[in-house]
């Protein structure tokens, strides 16, 4: 495991105060050797996410309990004579509800966080609302082991003092002592994310994970947009360019990038030359009047085809690669 290199982003303008979001920037070298930028989630967004999640768990527990209680009263509410006749059936129904309740409470308490963090998004509903997610600190994959470890620790960080408190109150223990012990406990674990740079809580330390910002991803703006791209229509001549499978399959990603560069440079002689080459390659007649529209349409449709292939795991790096 490679230790992540923690350093704030370089600030060339020295006298500008360092923003909090800059201070939370980290660069991690992944196992593949790529420098990956992260922004550690702020403590407030994590606290907010936790409160939303705990609220959700509480509501889920309450609703489940109420539904089961409703069913229970339905069983008890049977006419007395029938219940006596079938006391065995009533009893086993009661038992079944009890088993359901215990298992449901266990799952809400232990499995809620794990279930959501094990999914590809790596975030519970509260975390998603707060725009943060769990990630592995070494830049690698967030493994199931890590998610399990960080959430088992949650049990002692959050729920243990509550449990002791409930025990003390139900068994007539010393409530004052229970309060002090519970508060001391919670303060200790609350202090851990407050005193380290990466806001790691105890579970993160043990799991090798951290919580980072995951802003909602917006697709980058396309190089080409508008009528020409969508319809393949030339605004000069009104001609429409539609390319078939055979005409698009001659080029790969490398050629797409070259074409993109040509379009960005936007030099007429280059456009004409490239248009001629492509026409020769796919067997079209050159001199279509509007080279730019032709190339834009070809670029858009080639890109759509390659992206479609990529989604199905078929890549075509360049024109020499197989039919892809």
């Amino acid at each position, binding site marked *: *495991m490679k230790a992540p290199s923690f350093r704030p982003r370089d600030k060339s303008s020295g006298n500008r105060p360092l923003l909090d979001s800059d201070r939370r920037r980290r660069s991690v070298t992944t196992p593949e050797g790529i420098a990956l930028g992260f922004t550690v989630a702020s403590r407030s967004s994590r606290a907010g996410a936790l409160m939303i999640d705990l609220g959700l768990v509480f509501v889920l527990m309450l609703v489940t309990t109420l539904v089961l209680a409703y069913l229970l009263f339905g069983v008890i509410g049977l006419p007395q004579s029938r219940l006596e006749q079938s006391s065995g059936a009533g009893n086993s129904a009661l038992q079944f509800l009890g088993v359901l309740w215990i298992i449901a409470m266990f799952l809400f308490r232990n499995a809620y966080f794990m279930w959501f963090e094990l999914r590809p998004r790596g975030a519970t509903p509260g975390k998603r609302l707060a725009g943060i997610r769990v990630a592995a*600190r070494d830049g690698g994959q967030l493994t199931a082991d*890590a998610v*399990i*470890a960080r959430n*088992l620790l949650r049990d*002692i960080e959050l729920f243990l003092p509550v449990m002791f408190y409930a025990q003390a109150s139900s068994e007539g223990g010393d409530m004052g002592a229970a309060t002090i012990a519970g508060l001391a406990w919670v303060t200790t674990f609350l202090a851990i994310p407050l005193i380290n740079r990466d806001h790691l809580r105890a579970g993160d*330390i*043990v*799991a090798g994970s951290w919580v980072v910002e995951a802003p909602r991803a917006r697709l980058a703006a396309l190089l080409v947009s508008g009528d020409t791209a969508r319809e393949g229509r030339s605004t000069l001549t009104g001609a429409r360019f539609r390319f078939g499978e055979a005409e698009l399959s001659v080029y790969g990603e490398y050629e797409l990038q070259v074409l993109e560069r040509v379009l960005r440079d936007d030099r007429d002689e280059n456009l004409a030359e490239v248009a001629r080459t492509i026409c020769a390659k796919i067997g079209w007649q050159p001199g279509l009047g509007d080279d730019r529209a032709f190339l834009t349409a070809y670029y858009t449709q080639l890109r759509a085809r390659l992206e479609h292939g990529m989604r199905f795991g078929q890549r075509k790096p360049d024109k020499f690669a197989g039919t892809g």
Partner: protein
Amino acid sequence: MRATIYGSGGENGLGLFAAALFNNNAQVSILAFALGFAFAVPSLLLLVHNMGGLGAMLWLFHGAGLLPDFAAWLMVHGTTELFAILLAGAAGVHIGRNMAFPGELAVLDAAAQAGRRAAQVMVGVVLMLIVAALLEGFARQLIDDPLARAAIGLFMLVFWIGYLFAWRRGVPE
């Protein structure tokens, strides 16, 4: 005292009993695992505390001359359950030990490595506890013969030891 070991409960309420036992045991083992974070000291205290309770029970039944029967009663599920709780404790100790003595690695890296490995153990522990709860809730209550109970318990012990040690994959270095 004999009545507590034999024929208690009949066939009623077994499912509920099993679920409650599973819940309780799972929480104890999660606690044993998680407390490993504090350099494993509380994990060991928790195990000693629980084993102390077990010893007290053994002493009590020994005084009443029921030790073999009690042992058989306990073994049905105890071999699975105590094994699982010991594994959870071991997972906790593994974390605590690696944090206290990280060796070549940075403390954070050592903790992360140990934590992930121990979490894998915990998945198995939960599965073992489900088996233990089923044994405790059903097998123990339905079978009254001490020899049969001991046989089940021993079989489970052999099964787990065989499963965990005889067919284990190579230990990563």
